[in-house]
């Protein structure tokens, strides 16, 4: 006890002064941000997410005088290319102030030095982030964050189905195979290189390799062996019982979701554990929907917001990002009726009133059978695995 208090005291002494400097620097940022317009480039395929962004924009307008313009995009890669082209053309006042990003897009922007920062750890609300409990807030896929992006929400591979048709959800890849055998043509996944398809493939490899830890290191050429093993021992057989006998695949996760709603497929796939519940609330999936993760765990990650190196409204972007990290904004985002995106904060660090806002009543479609989070493999595995998959299954 003594020991711990002592430690805390030392920690405080060590951080108090920089904290004051922090506060001064932050109010300077807030002052600069006033009157700025932040062009927030974010995927806009979901009406509920768009509505949430609009709400957050209104709030920072009221509180900090920062105007947020949601630039609606279909693919974050567009933004990466736009920033790259603008920087190459010497455009200093770029068109992107803040971008919703993670994974491969972040790695590319970081390595090509297209990002402003470090800045994220200097935000006042960053102190609330659960950096210990949620390792992916500091490690975006295999890339260290280094303060170049601010965590926004959590994701974990999750499956869903109509509980009335699927009373015992398959909670492993092996169980999924058995399920497919019993229900031929009613299971599939989006074809890689779709992000969800690639994740399904990684998950399948994880569940079929004795030691998955080495996949956190760059691919040393073993991707071929590993994939071959999973293909011959699992996917070849699964595909025989899949939709269209595994000769055609849906093109996107949204299509799979729609096919589940239609009853053409029995099992859906998502990265937001609360998406099924959100879709039930929106009247797009039946109230009997159930969601689950695999017993041994499923791949999880964090999504972030980042500021391009040539952003015009860097201060405004930081003020907005900091607001997105506030307990209030995170609790609202966590609400299944609003968006249902899990928080990056350590809820236990919050005060009671704030905690109460996170206490969600269980909603129909919520995850009833959770599993642990598995870390993403190193990014270098992705292109290799996608190519191998396409060579084997992509030719029809």
């Amino acid at each position, binding site marked *: 006890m003594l020991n711990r208090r002592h430690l805390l005291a030392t920690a405080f002494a060590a951080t108090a002064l920089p904290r004051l400097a922090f506060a001064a620097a932050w109010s300077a940022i807030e002052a600069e941000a006033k009157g700025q317009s932040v062009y927030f480039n974010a995927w806009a395929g979901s009406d509920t997410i768009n509505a949430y962004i609009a709400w957050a924009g209104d709030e920072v307008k009221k509180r900090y005088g920062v105007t947020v313009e949601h630039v609606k995009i279909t693919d974050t*890669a567009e933004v990466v290319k736009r920033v790259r082209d603008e920087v190459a053309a010497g455009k200093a006042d770029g068109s992107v102030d803040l971008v919703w990003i993670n994974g491969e897009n972040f790695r590319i922007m970081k390595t090509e030095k297209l990002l402003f920062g470090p800045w994220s750890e200097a935000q006042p609300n960053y102190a609330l982030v659960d950096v210990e409990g949620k390792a992916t807030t500091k490690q975006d896929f295999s890339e260290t964050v280094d303060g170049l992006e601010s965590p926004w929400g959590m994701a974990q591979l999750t499956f869903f189905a109509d509980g009335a048709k699927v009373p015992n959800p398959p909670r492993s890849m092996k169980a999924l195979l058995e399920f497919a055998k019993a229900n031929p043509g009613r299971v599939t996944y989006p074809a890689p290189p779709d992000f969800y398809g690639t994740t399904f493939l990684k998950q399948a490899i994880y569940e079929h390799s004795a030691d998955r830890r080495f996949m956190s290191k760059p691919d040393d050429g073993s991707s071929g062996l590993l994939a071959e093993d999973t293909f011959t021992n699992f996917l070849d057989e699964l595909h025989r019982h899949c939709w269209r006998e595994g000769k055609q695949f849906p093109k996107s996760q949204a299509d799979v979701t729609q096919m589940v709603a239609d009853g053409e497929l029995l099992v859906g796939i998502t990265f937001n554990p609360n998406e099924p519940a959100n879709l039930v609330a929106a009247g797009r999936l039946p109230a009997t929907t159930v969601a689950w993760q695999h017993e041994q765990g499923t791949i999880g990650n964090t999504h972030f917001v980042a500021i391009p190196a040539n952003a015009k409204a860097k201060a405004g972007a930081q003020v907005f990002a900091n607001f997105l990290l506030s307990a209030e904004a995170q609790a609202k985002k966590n609400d299944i009726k609003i968006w249902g995106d899990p928080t990056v904060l350590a809820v236990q660090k919050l005060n009671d009133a704030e905690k109460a806002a996170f206490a969600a009543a269980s909603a129909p479609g919520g995850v009833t059978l959770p599993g642990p989070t598995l870390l993403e493999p190193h990014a270098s595995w992705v292109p290799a695995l996608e190519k191998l998959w396409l060579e084997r299954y992509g030719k029809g």
Partner: protein
Amino acid sequence: MVRAALALPLLAVFVVPLLLSVALVLPDTFNAQGMNDVWQHPQFAGAFRLTLLTGLASTTLALFSSLLIVARSSRSLSSRAGGFLAVPHLAFAIGLAFLIMPAGILARIIAQFAGWSAPPAWITTQDPYGLALTVALVLKETPFLVWALASVLNRDDLRQAFAGQRAVAASLGHSRRSVFLQVILPQLLPRVIWPLVAVLAYGMTVIDMALVIGPTQPPTLAQLIWVDINNADPEVNARGAAGVVLLSGVILLVVATVAALLRCASTAISGFWSKGPHQSRLRLTSLRHLPQRGRRREAPDEVSSLWNAFRIIYVLVIATLILQSVSGLWVFPNLLAEHFTLSAWKRLLTDASPVFTSLALAILTATTSLAASVLWLESVPQSKDKGLLWLSAFALCLPALVIGLGQYRLFLALAISGTATAMFFAHILPVAAYVFIMLQGPYRGFDDRFRSAASGLRASRAHFLRQVKWPMLKAALFSAFAVGFAVSMAQFVPAQLAAAGRFSTLPMEAVTLTSGGNRALTAAYGFALMALPLIVFLVAVRMGRSRWRTV
């Protein structure tokens, strides 16, 4: 000198930006590594085969069905085709897919009798041979060709010539079919070469329709390229850019091959065309024509039954879209959704600014293109048209991605990316190309003797244009405007790049919102995309009606 200056507007809004854009994008398409990577792509061979198959099959079938429709219909179809043309490709594909897919309306109707509780294992969409995509393309392109053919048949100068030739051929014993095949067709086909090339190029480069209804393993070449172009990795982008060059080359090659084949077969073809009437057919038709008195013109409202079939399909597709736009959860095999909701329409109407941006751009670009084309046609000798026609066709054959990318670089270099000017130029390029292609034929076909007569009556040039020429050409002018308007309303890729997030148009909003797969929202936006051009088409047809229809 002054007359030559009148050609400048079209050069400024169309030719110069087009050439500069292409020049800016050419260097990175000749990337040896990228070219090599395209060939190495595991799905390349299959995708290439599919693209050739769907492109050629859809163009051939669309040509045949449009000829059948035109040959069997006596009424002017150009005004009726407008409604079909206004339906955006994407909206049509979505509606059609929901009619025929395993969980679609047809399957649901059958399920009522067959007692199915889950969707059947039909392969009606995403079939490995791209048949569904081909059918969708034929259904969408036939009305365009019908319209192009009907515009030729309805040209005031040609109509009289055709009528005369019909009478002569009929008196020589040719049946109606024989007249069409051997007299009209040889004159018709050369005049619709450009629309045909546009149809082929569209069929081989289409992305949105293929994404909805086409196969995925392998996909078509255009889809493969689309995925690569959208990747954040410059190496993958280079592979996509090389793919674009390859695809453009393939289209040119196909056009050249077909042209060469036609030339080789020309003796056989002209032999057939100059042959007299076929005996058996002669007897058949004369029997068929018995009840009609003499060989007078056919019943005024006779329209091919194939055309009626098209109408029915379009009505079903549009009805499906409307139904979808208000449907919530819709479990198989129910014929109606469990609940209805207006949320998609509310979403569309709460932020109407993209609608107004699109409307303003469409009116501005269509008007400018029309004015610039008329100025060109009035001031430049006809011999110079050929180059511009080639350039227009070239602009339409190039995948939107290439032009979009080049324009985007141009705008960045000029520091106008994300401005209203950039949006204007991004929209006007295809609009000007279409308007010029549509207008050139009728405008140059204008009988110059009217002008001689007018000058003889001492009418000034302006007076002649206002009182005689433009009123006589107004059907062509209005329909060129309507096409330009519709093209502008459908602009997506170049607009998205040029806007840099500072502007949002209706198609941009539709594409981003529908990437989440919300069927009601997709349907509502599809319907909205269709409604505005449809209104403009109907108005154009009404205003284009001649006040002094002869015969």
